[in-house]
């Protein structure tokens, strides 16, 4: 049986060993062992469709999909929060009118998913999936509840820090990003092999939202800000239509 102490030792040995992106080969995250590519990625200059991202528009989603607290008939349980931020590309340009998708556990740490058998209660008023388009300045905003931490079976007594899954598109194909947003000061950070798969501490901090009282609304929701920088675009501004 693998204990948290075993995993912590493995995490410790790999600290700082990778770059600013997660290590693909990261054995403390046990599910990765048979799934990571062993060969180096082959670098190629993007061409054709790779220089462009798919387009999404107002017809693809409803505005209400950005509010995860109104998808059912009643109010969900938990701490209501607003999560907002700006999506920019690696050159600092806002990613405008582009799709952002999120999914998360409920306030008790349970996902609305058949494969989640954690015996914490489901909340009939909270499904935990949302979508929006960024605005003309690259800003997204979601209303939701703070997800709970939850146990998983990577090792004995493994717990994931509270997080919201984010899926993002840029202005070209190569900027596609799926990641997780965390909450400041979580005591589980040091113990979690998924968070720690990013072995550079500065890069890892980029996954943590900041509490922002200017986003907090009176008598309703606490506010968090999380800005997201995607990688650089390969298209020159002249190619913009």
């Amino acid at each position: 049986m693998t204990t948290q102490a075993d995993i912590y030792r493995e995490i410790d040995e790999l600290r700082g060993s990778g770059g600013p992106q997660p290590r693909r080969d990261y054995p403390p995250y046990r599910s990765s062992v048979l799934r990571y590519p062993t060969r180096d990625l082959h670098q190629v200059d993007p061409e054709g469709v790779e220089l462009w991202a798919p387009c999404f528009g107002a017809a693809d989603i409803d505005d209400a999909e950005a509010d995860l607290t109104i998808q059912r008939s009643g109010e969900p349980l938990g701490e209501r929060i607003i999560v907002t931020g700006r999506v920019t590309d690696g050159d600092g340009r806002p990613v405008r009118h582009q799709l952002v998708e999120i999914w998360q556990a409920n306030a008790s740490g349970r996902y609305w998913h058949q494969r989640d058998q954690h015996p914490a209660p489901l909340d009939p008023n909270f499904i935990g999936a949302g979508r929006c388009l960024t605005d003309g300045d690259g800003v997204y905003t979601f209303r939701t509840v703070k997800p709970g931490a939850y146990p998983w079976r990577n090792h004995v007594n493994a717990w994931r820090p509270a997080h919201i899954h984010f899926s993002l598109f840029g202005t070209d194909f190569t900027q596609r990003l799926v990641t997780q947003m965390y909450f400041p000061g979580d005591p589980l950070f040091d113990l979690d092999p998924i968070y720690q798969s990013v072995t550079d501490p500065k890069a890892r901090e980029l996954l943590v939202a900041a509490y922002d009282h200017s986003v907090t609304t009176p008598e309703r929701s606490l506010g968090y800000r999380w800005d997201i920088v995607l990688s650089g675009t390969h298209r020159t501004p002249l190619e913009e239509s």
Partner: protein
Amino acid sequence: MSYAPGQTVGPFFHLGLPFEGGNLLVPAGYPDAVRLHGRVLDGEGTPVPDALIELWQAGPDGRVPRATGSIRRDGFTFTGWGRAQTDGDGHYWFSTLTPGPAEPGRRPFFAVTIFARGLTDRLFTRAYLPGSEPDGLLDGLEPERRATLITTREQRGLLFDIHLQGEGETVFLSYPRQAR
């Protein structure tokens, strides 16, 4: 660089990412529809039942689609983008159109993104149509590696298996402006 790091899509992405008709870039049975399909396999050749594949491609005329409407498809607009989850046998499939070359004489390909529980970050690859046109990427690979990027033509479509690791490991791509 301050680029946000990726994180695994995890085991519960079905809650947030797949949507109805995501794999139907054109309705199945549409004239000229092809099935692009295959299996995702791990380092022991075991099917990966919790992977998600995204497809992004030119139309048959080689043009890059700029139309919206992938999430709520109208059945008429070709958006060039789709999303399919693997089933219990690690199998995914799309109903789509055969992409044309970006420029005359180029080898057409589908741009493919792979996500899965256990993958700490997404992977990119290309699924090329079979053919003989010269190609900067394919021509620079050993034949055994090159073969992992070329679809197999079938009567009603194209087969493209994705080997995440080990024997026949698919060639996965990085691009110059990504952080490493």
